[in-house]
């Protein structure tokens, strides 16, 4: 699927989704302590990176320096090979998608007008805008009948979907999301988190995502940057953050000792692979019963544990959706995985099916 014409791609001021923070600091005028303190960070193109931290940690400030809503006091931010300070500010912003917690839809514009704001700023052709809007509605799971509705006729979850569609409108390489789901109820939040994962796998955008919700960070992130008092404390994958926390702050924040959380980060698949590497005789020793429940290799170990406990079975049969049996998984395996250091994180995109 192509998302925008090549014509619009060529006129862009940046061509990359790679972001580099180079010793970035920000001190607000009225304050003495820096909000962001010498942060250096590299975000690979196409990654979903979560800025995680308590309020006042500087995570939002750090993100807002990317579309220059704030200017750094010192340090540089690069997108690809471009120092963003050298770029025309509105050109830069028009090609970075921006989603905020309060959504900020324009109440006097229809859904269609809202979504097409940036394409209209960029003088796209009418036909091109129309087809783009239709595509985005489809992508964000909104019915076409919503085109002529106004924001206050939509629910909170629907509004944020429109917000997301609006941010994606001009096919940006980079998406900034400032606690986008924090104001939603639990059901809608979970639904939109899953949709975001699906979109991220499908669209290949670099996403910077600010949150104070650890669960959300662990669920969504390719890498997590933990901030406190404006300083970058640790920048790692979710699994490394949980298993190799740099200090007690991280330990407490992500719940290193929380067994369920550790289990939820590991896929069944990685257990099967570990078994393959080790001795395979054990498996044949076990009496296989057809009554044992089956589980998909894409599920995580937390699900496996709960299934083991609820079914009372000694083991689970790991089966792909096609019916191919991959192996067995028992309580012993779970214990082993927890003690071993060879945890393989579940591949986020694998579990996404269209």
């Amino acid at each position, binding site marked *: 699927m192509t998302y925008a014409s090549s014509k619009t791609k060529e006129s862009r001021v940046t061509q990359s989704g790679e972001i580099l923070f180079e010793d970035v600091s920000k001190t607000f005028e009225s304050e003495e302590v820096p909000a962001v303190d010498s942060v250096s960070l590299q975000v690979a193109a196409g990654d979903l990176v979560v800025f995680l931290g308590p309020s006042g940690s500087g995570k939002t400030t750090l993100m807002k320096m990317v579309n220059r809503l704030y200017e750094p006091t010192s340090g540089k931010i690069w997108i690809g090979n471009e120092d963003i300070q050298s770029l025309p*500010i*509105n050109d830069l912003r028009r090609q970075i998608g921006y989603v*905020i917690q309060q959504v900020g839809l324009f109440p*006097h514009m229809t859904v269609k007008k809202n979504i097409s704001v940036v394409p209209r700023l960029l003088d796209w052709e009418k036909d091109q805008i129309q087809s783009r809007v239709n595509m985005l509605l489809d992508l964000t799971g909104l019915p076409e009948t919503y085109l002529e509705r*106004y924001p206050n006729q939509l629910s909170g979850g629907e509004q944020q979907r429109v917000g997301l569609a609006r941010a994606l409108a001009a096919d940006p390489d980079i998406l900034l999301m400032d606690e986008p789901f924090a104001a939603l109820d639990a059901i809608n939040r979970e639904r939109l988190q899953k949709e975001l994962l699906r979109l991220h796998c499908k669209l290949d955008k670099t996403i910077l995502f600010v949150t104070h919700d650890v669960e959300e960070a662990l669920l969504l992130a390719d890498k997590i940057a933990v901030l406190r008092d404006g300083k970058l404390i640790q920048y790692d994958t979710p699994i490394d953050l949980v298993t190799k926390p740099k200090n007690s702050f991280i330990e407490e924040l992500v719940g290193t000792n929380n067994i369920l959380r550790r289990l939820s980060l590991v896929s069944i698949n990685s257990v099967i692979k570990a078994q393959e590497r080790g001795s395979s005789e054990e498996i044949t020793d076990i009496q296989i019963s057809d009554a044992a429940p089956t589980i998909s290799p894409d599920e995580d170990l937390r699900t496996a544990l709960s299934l083991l406990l609820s079914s009372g079975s000694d083991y689970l049969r790991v089966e792909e959706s096609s019916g191919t049996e991959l192996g067995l998984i028992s309580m012993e395996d779970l214990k082993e995985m927890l003690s071993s250091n060879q945890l393989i994180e579940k591949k986020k995109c694998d579990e996404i099916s269209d």
Partner: protein
Amino acid sequence: MRYLINNLDLVGELFLEHLQLTLIVLFFALIIGVPLGVALARLKWLQGPVMGVLGIIYTIPSLSFFVLLIPIFGLGTTPAIVALTAYAQLLLVRNWLVGLTSINPAVLEAARGMGMSGWQRFWQVEFPLALPMLLVGVRLVVLSSIGIGTIAAFINAGGLGVLLFEGVITANYNKIFSGALAVTVLSLTANYGIRTFEQRAERAIHGAQVNH
């Protein structure tokens, strides 16, 4: 009633004069007040002093204000327009400013973050969203100008006040009644007309279906 029927030409002429005075005042009030409101919305520290001055101006009794301006502008419509425009600023700027500053900050942040320039933000977002409050200001300016404008007849500015003053001097109650009736008709019509626009603008920003 008889006076009104017999002098319909005169009353009509004064009516139009009054309307003209009101529209001229509204024109100048908007030219000054709209940019002033935008400036105050941007520069918060200016709000206190400027609104204070406008408030003080508003408390000057109209007759003395008109008379004070005669040495500078002479008799006629000019001092009336100046005084009424000065009064209008408080009503216009206060409402317009409320409209501008009560826009959801998230909406403005989104507009900025999406790369709208200052002008684009103003015309595409701020103006339409603050328009209902601007129209409230416009309505108040028109109504107060119609009302205070009657007094301007005292300094030769014409308008329906002429009937009132002449009626009082000659103790012609029919004349007074005709003048008062005409002013009332003018006020009610203006109020109703502007109210309609207000409601339309209000509906537009609250997203109900607008009839085009």
